C-alpha cells in the first residue's frame, strides 16, 4: 500500500511539491487513488469517536424519547413506541414548566452577574499598579483553577450555619443584622444565591482575563489618533474600546450561557436540588427522572428539550466561532 515510501502518515504538507496539475503517469492511477484514500486514514479513529461513540448516543436519545422505556422494557429488551407521549407528558406537567423557567432565570442571572463583574475586574486589572495587578491575577487564577467540586465543598464550609466564616463576618459587621446560626440552605432562593455566587466566583476569572487580553490587543494607534483629535477618556472608551470588544463580549456571553444552563455538579453537590426540590434545574430533573427514577424515555425527552433550548444559544455561537476563525 505504500507509495513512494512516504504515505505512512497520509499527511501531505500544504506547500509541498506542487503536483496538482501534473497528470500522473499512465498505469499509476490506482496508486494515486490508493494514496488519496490513505489521506483519510489518520481521521478514521476520530471519525469513529465522533460518529459512533458520540453520534450513536445522540441518535439513541432522540429514538428513546419516542418510546416507553423503563427498567422493565430495558430488562425485557422490548420496544414500546408511544409517539409524542413523553413530550406531551412533560409539557403537561406544571412542575416541568416551573423547572424550565427556573433554569432559564438561573442561567440569565448567572450570565449577567459573571459578565458584569468580569468586565469590571478586567477594567480593574488595567487600572491597578504592577504589584496589585500581579496579586489580582494570581487570586483570579486560584479561583479559576479550583475544581467545581472542590469549590462546591468549600462554599458549603464558608456558608455553614454554625461555624461558617460568612455568618461570623456578617454578624461582626453588623449592618445586615445578626446572622448567628443563619441557615443559607433553608430556602430555594437563598440556596440558589450561594450556588450563583459559587458559579460566578469560578467563571469571572476566565471572562476577566479574556476581556483584558481583548483590550490589550486593540491597536494603540487608534487611541493615539483619538487623543490627537481631542477625544475625552469617556469618549475613547465608548467609541473605541467598547465597539472593538463587542464580538468577544458576545462570544463570552454565549459561552457562559451554555455552561451555566447545563450546570450539574455545583447544584447537586450543594443540596441535590433541595430544599424540597426548589433548586432542581433541567439538568438535575433529567438525572432524577432518568437515572434515579429509571424513566429513560421521559428523561430522554427532557434531554431533547434541553438541547433544543441550548440550540437557541449554540447555533449563533457556532456561527460566530466559524466567522472569527476565518482560516479554517
Amino acid at each position: 500500500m505504500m507509495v513512494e515510501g512516504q504515505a505512512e502518515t497520509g499527511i501531505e504538507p500544504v506547500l509541498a511539491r506542487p503536483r496538482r496539475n501534473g497528470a500522473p503517469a499512465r498505469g499509476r492511477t490506482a496508486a494515486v487513488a490508493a494514496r488519496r484514500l490513505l489521506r483519510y486514514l489518520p481521521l478514521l479513529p476520530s471519525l469513529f469517536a465522533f460518529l459512533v461513540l458520540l453520534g450513536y448516543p445522540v441518535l439513541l436519545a432522540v429514538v428513546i424519547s419516542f418510546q416507553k422505556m423503563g427498567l422493565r422494557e430495558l430488562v425485557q429488551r422490548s420496544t414500546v413506541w408511544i409517539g409524542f407521549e413523553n413530550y406531551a407528558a412533560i409539557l403537561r406537567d406544571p412542575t416541568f414548566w416551573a423547572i424550565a423557567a427556573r433554569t432559564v432565570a438561573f442561567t440569565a442571572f448567572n450570565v449577567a452577574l459573571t459578565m458584569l463583574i468580569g468586565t469590571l475586574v478586567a477594567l480593574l486589572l488595567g487600572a491597578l499598579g504592577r504589584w496589585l495587578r500581579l496579586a489580582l491575577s494570581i487570586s483570579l487564577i486560584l479561583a479559576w483553577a479550583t475544581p467545581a467540586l472542590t469549590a462546591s465543598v468549600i462554599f458549603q464550609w464558608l456558608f455553614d450555619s454554625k461555624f461558617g466564616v460568612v455568618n461570623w463576618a456578617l454578624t461582626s459587621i453588623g449592618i445586615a443584622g445578626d446572622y448567628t446560626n443563619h441557615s443559607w440552605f433553608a430556602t430555594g432562593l437563598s440556596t440558589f444565591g450561594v450556588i450563583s455566587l459559587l458559579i460566578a466566583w469560578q467563571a469571572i476569572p476566565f471572562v476577566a482575563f479574556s476581556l483584558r487580553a481583548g483590550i490589550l490587543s486593540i491597536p494603540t494607534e487608534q487611541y493615539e489618533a483619538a487623543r490627537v483629535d481631542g477625544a475625552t477618556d469617556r469618549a475613547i472608551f465608548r467609541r473605541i474600546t467598547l465597539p472593538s470588544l463587542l464580538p468577544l463580549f458576545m462570544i463570552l456571553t454565549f459561552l457562559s450561557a451554555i455552561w451555566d444552563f447545563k450546570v450539574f455538579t455545583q447544584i447537586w453537590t450543594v443540596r441535590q436540588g433541595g430544599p424540597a426540590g426548589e433548586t432542581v434545574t433541567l439538568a438535575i430533573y433529567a438525572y432524577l427522572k432518568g437515572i434515579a427514577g429509571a424513566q429513560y424515555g421521559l428523561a430522554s425527552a427532557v434531554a431533547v428539550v434541553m438541547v433544543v433550548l441550548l440550540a437557541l444559544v449554540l447555533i449563533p455561537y457556532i456561527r460566530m466561532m466559524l466567522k472569527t476563525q476565518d482560516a479554517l
Partner: protein
Amino acid sequence: MTRRQVRRIAINALGVFTIFAFAFPVYWMASTAFKQPGDIQTYVPKFLPFPPTIDNFTTAVNRPFFPDYLRNSLVISISTVLLALVVGLMAAMAVARARFRGRKSFLLLVVVAQMAPFEALLIPMYLVLRQANLLNQIPALILTYFIFTLPFTIWALRGFIAGIPAELEEAALVDGANRFQAFWHVVLPLLAPGLVATSIFAFITAWNEFLYAYVLMRDTANFTLPVWLATFRTAFGTDWGGTMAASTLFTLPVLVFFLLIQNRMVGGVTAGAVKG
C-alpha cells in the same frame, strides 16, 4: 489630597478587596486543612492555622478506599490523556497539513462535538454503556472522557501545528527523510509545548469530572476522587478539617498544572474575536 490621589486610593482599595474575595475561599480551604481539630469549629474563626498540623491529611488519606479512589482517578485521567492525544494528533496533523475533500466538514464536526452538551447525553450514554456491559467498569469512564476531550484536543493541536512552518518539514523531506521521520524529528520537538498544554487540559477535565463518574460507577471501590469528595457528609460527617484536607489534596495537582498552562488558556477559546 488631590482628586487624582483619591481616585488612586479608591482603585487600590477596590483592588485589595477583589484580591481578597477571589483568594479567600482557597486560602480558607488550605488553612482549615492545617488547623488543629479544636481550632476549626469555633464561633470566632481563627484566621491562621497556628500551630499547623497534618493530622487532617492523615485522617483523609486513611479513610477506607482512599488508595482505590486515587488510583482510579490517576488511571482514568492518564489513559484519557494518552488516548485523546494519539487519536487527536493524527487528525490534527491531517487537517493542519493536508488539503482533502471533506476537510471543512470534518472541522465543523469537531466544533459541533466540542459544543455537545454532555450533561444532556447522560441517559443515552448510560444505556449504551449498559448494553455494552461496561457499567461500573473503569474503561467506561476512560471512553466517555476520551470523547469529552477529543474535540478540544484536535482543535488545539491543529492550532499548534499550523504555527509550525511547513517549510521545515519540506526541508527535511528534501534532505531525504520520509514523512514519518520528518514528523518525528522536526515537528514533534517543536510541538512539545503544545502537546503538554493540550494534555494538561485533558487531564484536568478528566480529573475533575463528577456527573458521569457518579452515575456510571456503582461499587465504592470504583469511585473516583470527585465522587468521594461529593459524598463528604457520609465520608467525613461534620469533620470539616478532614473534608478540607481531602479537598486540598484533590485540588493541588490541578492548581500546579493550571499554573503551567494558564497563559495559553485565555487565547485558545476566543482567539481572533477582537476587531483589530
